């Protein structure tokens, strides 16, 4: 009987703890969701103009309708997805154009090199 008592105690304590933790988790998820919704109603000004040009911290889920003059929303959506996908692929390859630095990578350099070489050969004065 000792074993059954132990088993019942395990069941009560175990399922109790599991339920308690998951209720807590549910409440936290609700909390985050509420913050999320509130954050959307009052969009914060984009304050991250860090050294990273444009890749960091941007909100992928909300491409802003830039230039709604002639483009249809569908087209804008399609372009946005293409750009996001491109950025993701580049990041996946750790291409330093998107990423600040990939230790040891020369990929970035080689692009600069090709651009720079043509500059050096055909010096075009910017100012």
């Amino acid at each position, binding site marked *: 009987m000792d074993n059954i008592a132990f088993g*019942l105690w395990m069941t009560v304590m175990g399922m109790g703890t599991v339920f308690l933790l998951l209720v807590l988790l549910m409440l936290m998820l609700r909390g985050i969701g509420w913050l999320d919704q509130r954050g959307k109603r009052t969009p914060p000004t984009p304050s991250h103009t860090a050294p990273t040009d444009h890749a960091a911290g941007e909100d992928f889920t909300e491409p802003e309708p830039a230039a709604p003059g002639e483009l249809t929303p569908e087209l804008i959506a399609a372009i946005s997805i293409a750009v996001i996908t491109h950025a993701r692929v580049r990041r996946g390859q750790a291409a330093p154009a998107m990423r600040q630095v990939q230790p040891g990578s020369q990929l970035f350099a080689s692009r600069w090199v090709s651009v720079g070489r043509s500059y050096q050969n055909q010096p075009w004065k910017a100012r």
Partner: protein
Amino acid sequence: MSPETLAQLLQGITNITWQSVVMMLIGGLLILLAVVKEYEPLLLLPIGAGAILTNLPLSPLVGEGGMLSILYNVGVSNELFPLIIFIGIGALTDFGPLLENPKMVLLGAAGQFGIFLTLILALLLGFNRSEAASIGIIGAIDGPTSIYVSGILAPHLVGPITVAAYSYMALVPLIMPPVMRLLTTKAERSIKMPYTQREISQRTRILFPIIVTVAVGIAVPFATPLIGMLMLGNLMRESKVVERLTHASANELANVVTLFLGLAIGSTMKGVDFLQLGTLAILGLGLLAFFLDTATGVLFGKLMNVFSGGKFNPLIGAAGISAFPMAARVVQKEASREDFSNFILMHAMGANAAGQVASVIAGGVLLALMGAG
């Protein structure tokens, strides 16, 4: 030729035992299931191969310096391999459906009852407490959790428990439907639920794994390794800045570790230890755990149906057992069987993801209550 030389040459044949023959047949059966039925082949094929290689007479692959024993010591006895696999699972899992619908979290808890009910039954059958808890963890219906917990509490049972866990997980499409149909009415199964997709911001997706790790880690320190690695993989996935690591965890690393893990598990299936009445009992109790999990999940779903005023499809409760992501698919299949146009997969996916998290937590709680670690 001297008699000694002859004995030396025939030592392979003279060392065959009926246990080793049976175990090689079992290994062959596992490979057959993996190849012909495609039952979790990624694990059952290496396990089957490991079982055969281990039970060959005088196999140098096991024992001091044997390759399979090395793999076991390197990754199973110290629980490294299941934890590494958890990183990969986390990197592959999308918790979006759960984040969209937080109340699904509760269903994940309901699907763990089978762990403890099985534990009680195992105690009644005469297993000691550590063994009973290890057998119960089959009810977590999550491979790495079962390996992790049983590896700590009862290393000598890792073999049968892992085989049971993965075999029954492959059989989930056969095990779940009868229980689901028995416990629900046609009307309940036909309940449609509106699905309004909510935007989940990247911030939420990144905060989720961190918060879960910290909260669970503080509440149940024994669960830290399991939940920590699962959520580490998910954090890498959602951060979107370390694709190299995410990809490596979910592919190269996971593949190699899965192969080694399977072989090492197979190497624990030495005939003399495996072919005992206890193993049969474990296989039976494991199957029972799957039934009990499904039943309690559905019953909890019915409870939520009552509370929601009849708007909740109780089938979704069955997805809380984990067996990610098969269980959600089975639930959708059952719902479609009643009404072809009923689409409750997204809700089921939420419950399923919750079941994954809850299984890991339950594993940690079990370890904590057993005072081990």
